[in-house]
């Protein structure tokens, strides 16, 4: 139903009265009393009579606040930006204050009422934003009331301000909200998810600003009320962001706008790597599944993470024999992943059958078809399926070695159904497919753990037993491009490459590709000098 002029007038009056009240010293010292005054007024005006009216009230408030923002920001000359923005904040902060007080003090100790109100408001803010975004950015005008002013370009700031100030207000430690601390975070998490860059690209910078805000990081990762759930939520949001960025990075489209967003992403990930490396350790698989194969440094950043209580042995001071004996190299890494759910049931069943019986040669021949999605160069294979097969086979291989009472090394992993899979894919696939398989293997070269150990041995084994020089070259390329990129570098990558170039059994330097061009030869020597 259309908003009646009467309703619009009531809401505007209430909001004006609140703005006049909420900045007074009395209201700042006794906010509950100020709220009581407003609740009385709102009851008198009948805006709280039904759920529908409450929804309408908050929606009209939101739209009024956004309108104020648009009017003020519309013609701002650069010199007055600070003053203009502060004038916007005056109205926006008042609205947020009213909302937060209503959430905090609604219905006594009925926590569900508080959460329902918060969800309602966030729903309203996100849908107003979305509609505004559709109109302002894309020019569609599905539902906007014709009487609304024509605003011009989309202004993210009012929404950004409402969301972050509301988040700060409702997640500050407060005894009245402590019982619903997690539902509050969950509600905001839902709102962030709805506003993700793929849905509202015009809001992308504000969105990353929110996700990367120190208070958001603090509440979800730092002093979290429910670390398991909040870290999963935060990872999901990171993945949403990477999914937006990925196509630009993959297609090498880096205008200033994308470059700025990428740089901001690096900053946020660097903070996570420094302060919460366990998050990147535990979710590395799903995160790397989102990162395009050509984003070497971004991926290295994720894979370089290691648990804070771990001391990494110096990769330059170890022999591979010593690497084999590091106790951590036998430890299963903690992964927040259901290994049985990463590929479809049919493929898994066939894979399991082969790994158990090692009898169906036909399966090995058909395996590439499970990975192929098109004939378009650069896009022939389903990277997610490739990554899944590699990890699944590797984890099953490790299980089998352990069940025999053995430890992982280059001898125990050889000549098995598991190695058949890797060797077969290596030989059967074309360059593009092989690149993806090797990428998937290299994605497991991380901090000392049994996955790092296993997949390091896989690489060394494949290199040593490769019939064709292009296979050795591609293995080298995969490792090398990750090493030649600027820091950080995962520990497992370093020890694997060092072994490859120093182990006499690999005869690395005899390969022509190490001398294919003077620049390449120099580059190899530089990396080798650093490594050895």
């Amino acid at each position, binding site marked *: 139903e259309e908003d009646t002029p009467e309703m619009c007038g009531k809401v505007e009056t209430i909001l004006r009265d609140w703005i006049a009240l909420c900045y007074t010293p009395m209201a700042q010292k006794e906010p509950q009393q100020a709220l009581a005054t407003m609740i009385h007024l709102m009851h008198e005006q009948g805006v709280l009579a039904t759920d529908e009216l409450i929804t309408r009230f908050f929606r009209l408030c939101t739209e009024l606040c956004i309108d104020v923002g648009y009017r003020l920001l519309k013609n701002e000359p650069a010199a007055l930006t600070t003053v203009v*923005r502060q004038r916007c904040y005056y109205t926006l902060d008042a609205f947020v204050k009213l909302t937060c007080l209503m959430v905090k003090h609604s219905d006594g100790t009925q926590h569900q009422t508080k959460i329902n109100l918060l969800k309602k408001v966030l729903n309203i803010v996100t849908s107003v934003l979305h509609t505004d975004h559709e109109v302002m950015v894309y020019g569609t005008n599905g539902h906007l009331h014709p009487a609304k002013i024509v605003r011009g*370009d989309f202004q993210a700031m009012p929404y*950004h301000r409402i969301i972050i*100030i509301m988040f700060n207000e409702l997640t500050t430690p407060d005894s009245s909200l402590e019982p619903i601390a997690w539902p509050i975070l969950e509600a905001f998490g839902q709102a962030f998810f709805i506003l993700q860059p793929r849905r509202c*690209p*015009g809001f*992308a910078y*504000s969105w990353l600003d929110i996700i990367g805000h120190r208070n958001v990081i603090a509440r979800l990762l730092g002093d979290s009320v429910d670390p398991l759930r909040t870290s999963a939520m935060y990872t999901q949001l990171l993945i949403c962001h990477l999914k937006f960025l990925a*196509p630009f990075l993959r297609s090498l489209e880096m205008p200033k706008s994308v470059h700025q967003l990428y740089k901001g992403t690096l900053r946020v990930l660097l903070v996570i790597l420094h302060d919460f490396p366990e998050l990147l350790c535990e979710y590395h698989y799903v995160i790397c599944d989102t990162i395009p194969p050509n984003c070497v440094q971004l991926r290295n950043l994720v894979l370089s993470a290691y648990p804070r209580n771990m001391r990494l042995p110096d990769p330059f001071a170890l022999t591979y024999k010593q690497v084999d004996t590091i106790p951590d190299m036998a430890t299963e890494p903690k992964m927040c992943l259901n290994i049985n759910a990463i590929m479809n049931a049919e493929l898994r069943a066939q894979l399991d059958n082969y790994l158990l019986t090692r009898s169906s040669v036909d399966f090995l021949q058909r395996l590439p078809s499970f990975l192929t999605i098109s004939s378009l160069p650069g896009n022939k294979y389903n990277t997610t399926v490739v990554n899944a097969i590699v990890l699944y086979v590797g984890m099953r291989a490790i299980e089998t070695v352990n069940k025999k009472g053995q430890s992982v090394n280059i001898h125990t992993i050889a000549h098995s159904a598991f190695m058949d899979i890797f060797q077969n894919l290596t030989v059967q696939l074309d360059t593009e497919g092989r690149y993806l398989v090797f990428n998937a293997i290299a994605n497991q070269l991380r901090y000392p753990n049994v996955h790092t150990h296993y997949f390091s041995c896989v690489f060394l084994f494949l290199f040593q037993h490769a019939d064709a020089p292009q296979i050795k070259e591609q293995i080298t*390329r995969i490792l090398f491009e990750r090493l030649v990129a600027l820091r950080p570098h995962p520990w497992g990558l370093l020890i694997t490459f060092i072994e490859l170039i120093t182990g006499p059994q690999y005869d690395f330097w005899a390969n022509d590709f190490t001398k294919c061009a003077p620049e390449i030869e120099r580059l190899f020597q530089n990396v080798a000098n650093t490594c050895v």
Partner: protein
Amino acid sequence: PLGRAPPIEDHDKHLNALEMALQRIPQPMDSERPRSYLPKMPCTTPAFYPQQAPSNSDSMEYYLRLSPETLFFTFYYMEGSRAQLIAAKALKKLSWRFHTKYLMWFQRHEEPKQITDDFEEGTYIYFDYEKWSQRKKEQFRFEYRYLE
């Protein structure tokens, strides 16, 4: 080695939206509490001015090297911030005490002439934030109920 990937369906739409949004990238103040008494006014300074705070400026040791007047400025004009907290701690280390009624910092100029359970009396230096200067007050009674 994979070459460029073909653009996705909404690629141009997303890129155009991003390009427009770049003109209005968020400002740090958008997620900060506003300061009505001394609004922040970003100014461009010459490149040879330090562009970042010194790396140890978040420490008590740094604040203890600042003059009392700088500490008073921090206390009164950076309200509700970590800087105000550290400045207050630094002032206390320098034997200043906050009077919660007058909202001013006091320091004994000499040993009090009288000390009871409820107050001490004598000559004090205090920082008058209205006149923005240190002043001396003789025969001042500092009631302990107003001691922060």
